């Protein structure tokens, strides 16, 4: 895991700060709501919780520390990078 720089949000470890870099949205299957809610490239985030049985992710993001719930399937559209690799 450590040596891979790019993850999707769903595969990103919990309680670690990451940065959104891009979307995987070539087929336009990604709900527009993800962008509308403010999960934009350059935004810092942290996954705080996950509901049991691989349930939705509880993500804190942005300067305002907004909180959002999204499923793993939605997280797969979001490409993120490890902030430690980017130089903290």
């Amino acid at each position: 895991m450590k040596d891979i720089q790019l993850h999707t949000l769903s595969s990103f470890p919990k309680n670690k700060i990451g940065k959104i870099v891009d979307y995987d949205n070539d087929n336009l299957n990604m709900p527009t709501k993800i962008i509308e809610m403010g999960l934009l490239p350059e935004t810092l985030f942290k996954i705080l919780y996950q509901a049991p049985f691989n349930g939705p992710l509880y993500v804190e993001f942005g300067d305002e520390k907004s909180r959002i719930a999204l499923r793993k399937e939605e997280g797969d559209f979001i490409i993120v990078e490890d902030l430690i690799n980017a130089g903290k």
Partner: protein
Amino acid sequence: MQENNKKQILLVGNPNVGKSTVFNALSNKKQKTGNYAGVTVSSHSGNYSYKNEEVEIVDLPGSYSIYPSSEDEAIFSKFLIDGQKDYSGVVYILEALSIKRGLLLFQQIQDLGIPMILVLNQIDQAERRGIHIDIEKLSKALNIKVIQTNAKEQIGIEAIKEAVFSNDFVTSEKPSFDIPAEHKNLLDKNAENDYQAWINVTLEKNSDSASKNIVPKRLQVKETVRRYQNVDKILADVITKKAQFKELLTEKLDKVLVHKFWGYIVFMFILLIIFQCVYFLAEYPMNWIDEAFAWLSQFAGEHLPEGPINSLVSQGIVPGLGGIIIFAPQIGILLYFLYLLEDSGYMARVVFLMDRLLRPFGLNGKSIVPLVSGTACAIPAVISTRNIENLKERLLTILVTPFMTCSARLPVYSIIIGLIISDKTIFGIQYKALVLLGMYLLGFFVALLSAAILKNFIKEDNKTYLVMDLPTYKKPLFGYDFKLVLGKVWDFITGAGKIIFIVSIIIWVLSYFGPKQNPDEMVATDVHLDHSYLAKMGKAIEPAIAPLGYDWKMGVGILTSFVAREVFVGTMSTLYSLDDDAPEGKVIDKMRHDVKPNGEKVFNFATGVSVLLFYAFAMQCVSTLAVVYRETKSWKWTGFQVVMMTGLAYFVSLIAYQILK
């Protein structure tokens, strides 16, 4: 001639920004404030007058973008884009803590050429977060009048009224979003402005956009990203971040409330507390109401002149009404808890916790809100499905929500449970409460089970998703919610009361008169109940319901219940008050001691269980059906719901009675 100079303003904003609170503070009209997305499902309006000017406020459903992704948001967009622009302007509510997200929709509306005022709510929360917002700069950058408020404390409300009075609405001259040059050729030259024309393209209103090889959704994404970049630039100047950073209550609470294990325990615990209160706190006022109506009935019986009127009032109308008003305390307590939970922001956490568990049944985490609301009343519950984006999940939720134990079933359950379950307790919890809880769980599980079956028969191509804001926790408006509950309970009493008033008169007529017994009278009056028309009708359907263990009185109860379930209790009260053979006392005691001709008790355990199951499953509420039709716009699904639920009820009750008897 002087025109009525009533001014109209629209209240707009993201969900959970305190829009409803501002609305309530402005107008004094009763209206619900909610803390989960889409609780204001349709536009409400209220009024106030300021300096002799009458103002009407229209509260639109919360939305994140002009591009709709659910039914609520569609209502919202349609209103702003296509609606008659006969309002003075939009009062846009922005929550300081989510200023960035809020400005997206703000600028979209501004670009439509709509005059606006900006309200910045809850700035104290942002300060505590170490975020300072320079109001002057914000106002200048957006070219708008900005008013600071703390709506819960009533701060800034006068300033809004003053701004509306002096028409401080500003229409932006320069659009904040430049239409990408490469797409300019798509725009219809006849549209009101460029952005309006752009929206016609991105919402696929221009039929020829497809031919030009354009993907509208891609354009929407492009616009949103560009707008956010623009907002970032503006905010860089407006916001200063301080090092100081305080953990909010929300973070502390969520450590427990969304915990993998404790989160569910807390949710179950909250539900248990609610049901304990519904059953026990309500017991005292219920006894008072019962005694008051018994006294009233006796008083009317003694003081009205002997004859049909006396009988109609003392044995028809009064017991009928009493039978329904007695359940007002239970309904009130249940609703009060639901409002407080909604108001506090907790419901969104429940959606988060339940999503994964509800998905195997074809439902969405958001279905939990209608399902829980369904324990109060299916009507608002069905309407609250509008924020479920996926149509299949929405239809499924609508179809199964009426299985949830609504408050109209509560009167029936209470009386039957009172009859067949003993007063014993276990660990300090009454058996009766446990059985009641069991009925609630039964409704819930049957709702899930039927969803799991039905999901195989509904087609839907759109992908399901969950992307949901988790609002900060807010202290619920205890006093305000209490007033709301009183209003709702009053609606219930008057609404149900009207029906029950009429039904109890009809029942009285049918039971006071009977087929003639000697040739010279038209009809027999003041007959013994067994010889009345009512008994005749009940006995006519007896063959169909006897296998379920019901006698003709219950048959009459079930027939009248198809108007609304709670009518059963009113009917029973009327029937048993009319029955001269039954010993004096409360209706429930009369029911308890009623015997069949063969000496067997009418309400034995088997019959009781059978009645409980019938009422748990049968579709007996005309008002709910009307709403289901309105929301699904389909007679097929509405009819299907009636047949499925009532068929299941008959079948299950039949089996239960045959096994238990």
